């Protein structure tokens, strides 16, 4: 892997940090965006020691879509005008039961997971198209494959993100740039810590990060499942007839 210019949106997530470490070890220039400045500074100090040539932090609420275009331009100029990789990690799992009763909370979930994420992805697409190089990697979820009673609000936002990035991949393909949307299954992170059942289906953040970097650095399909076995599981879940599906608690 060559020395890369990488923008990481939602850098404080566990998977984002593992991804940043992989790039840091190769001497990358990094821009980290997230909400908590003090924690971002801790990450930046760590990543520089681990080998990052440069590590800037941008502390902001990424769901403020009116700031997206100007902030993204600043991030790119901090990398001398060229981004080799733009990673979008942030998301909000939310509390489905609560959101069903509180529509403002539901819309907030959709705004974080879809609307604001779409703004960043479109800003990244414009930049990559101008450069005619680079890759956008957006983290989505298997929850977007079929609406299920337990998490369809989160799932709807992620489904939207998946289609958006798939479209960006199509748009960028003739221009020499790429986009990949990664549908993640269960990952053992703070986002899912309240779910006590851990077993074979649960992946570690470091393993997921390695898979994402591979999708960025090597030829890849525009839509990938991480880990790959989720493609099989979700194919089965999608073909179960509604009559049967509606009897489950999935």
């Amino acid at each position, binding site marked *: 892997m060559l020395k890369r210019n990488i923008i990481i949106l939602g850098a404080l997530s566990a998977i984002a940090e593992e991804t940043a470490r992989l790039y840091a070890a190769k001497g990358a220039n990094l821009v980290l965006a997230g909400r908590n400045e003090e924690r971002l500074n801790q990450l930046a100090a760590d990543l520089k020691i681990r080998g990052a040539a440069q590590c800037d932090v941008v502390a902001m609420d990424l769901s403020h879509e009116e700031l997206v275009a100007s902030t993204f331009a600043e991030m790119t100029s901090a990398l001398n005008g060229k981004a080799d990789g733009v990673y979008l990690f942030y998301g909000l799992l939310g509390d489905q039961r609560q959101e069903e009763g509180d529509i403002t909370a539901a819309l907030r979930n959709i705004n974080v997971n879809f609307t604001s994420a779409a703004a960043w992805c479109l800003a990244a697409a414009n930049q990559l198209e101008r450069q005619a190089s680079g890759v956008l990697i957006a983290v989505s979820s298997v929850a977007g494959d079929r609406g299920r009673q337990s998490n369809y609000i989160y799932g709807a936002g992620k489904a939207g993100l998946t289609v958006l990035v798939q479209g960006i991949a199509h748009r960028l393909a003739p221009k020499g740039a790429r986009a990949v949307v990664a549908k993640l299954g269960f990952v053992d992170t703070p986002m899912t810590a309240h779910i006590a059942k*851990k077993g074979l289906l649960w992946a570690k953040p470091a393993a997921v990060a390695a898979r994402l970097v591979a999708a960025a650095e090597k030829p890849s399909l525009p839509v990938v499942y991480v880990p790959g076995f989720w493609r099989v599981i979700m194919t089965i879940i999608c073909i179960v007839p509604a009559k049967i599906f509606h009897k489950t608690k999935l």
Partner: protein
Amino acid sequence: MTDLDFRLDYTSWGRVVRAPHHVLKPRFVDTVPRLTDSEGSFLPVGMRRSYGDSVINSCNHLIDMTGVDRFHSFDEETGILHCDAGVTLDAVLRFSVPRGWFLATTPGTRFVTLGGALANDVHGKNHHRAGTFGCSVRSFGLIRSDGPPQRVERGGPLFEATLGGLGLTGIITDVEIELVRVESAYLNIERIAYGNIREFFALAHESGDRFEHTVSWIDCANGGDALGRGIFQRANWCRDGRLIPHGTKSGAVMPFDMPVRLLNGTTVRLFNTFYNALQKRGPRVQETHYAPFFYPLDSIRDWNRMYGGAGLYQYQCVIPSINAEDAIEALIRRIARSGAGSFLAVLKTFGERQSGGCLSFPFEGATLALDFANRKAETLSLMAQLDQIVEDAGGRLYPAKDGRMSAGMFQQGYPDWMRLRELKDPTITSDFWQRVSYC
């Protein structure tokens, strides 16, 4: 910060005690839970490579610190490294070796955190030169229930109580250590077969000044003429500039618990005989990377499962020099007779250097370490007999390895334990501490 229900998958390396824990896993120092927030007690833990119950806090909170794992600073001139407590020795070496620096001393696994290495004041093959891990610690951060986070510098009573203090004095948040320069990632290792304990001590005596690292494998399974035979290893760093860190790929995995019936006197004796022959066949002097030399078992993930689903005990004692030869011989005679010995037993001499920790295990003398598959009463009774030999010889056991020593044996072996009791945080405890602090 994460909040989980009670879970059963947090065990120690020995896996004898299985207790439910409420696990909290912060990723940042500012999300470490406040010790005053709950009625229950807390215990900070790292990679849980301790064998017994010093990382168990049954039915209460564990604070898993492995997510707080960032580097703060490194001084290329002095080798001073400042890291979060959850950084592992594995991560330190991967970072430091290419830059020509190594840990001042390292235990037999690199899968331990800096916080855990400090809290157990761990030792390694160069103890006779470098002392314990604590000798390389300059300062650390500590969160206690009675005040704001504090910086603890070398020398004070809180420093000494925390070194080897089993995490009981507070939550160690970050550690500042001194690394040492190396000019290669390889060592020149010499292997010498010895026939009995007396020969071992002669070799150790003769090697201490000339070799930085000494250790030996001893056959504790075969009696008779084979009793006390072993392979002595002594090594110094190469100086050839090959600064290649260990690989990231984990090697073999032990995918299941070994059926207990396969672990008996015969198989263990056969293994030891085979291992002895294998070691003797190799070249006498060999250049070896640090990973297989310092961390032979790290290449088999979950190797503790070799001892079966009931788990294992490790028994590690230290005997003062004056009684070492007789007591070690008595110990291995007793173990060989029981037929319960382990695949690999380790015998090494300790030097006189002290870190100052009130509960630091090593003192000048010899240490013997070996594993026993958990066969309940049979194993406990054997270890009680070994205790008698150790106590009579003025020795003591290593808390990081222990899951069953009596309060009396602990308090007699560690006369400074009252100093730890005074500085222990009232909100922190462990099953180990509940057992051994009983008066």
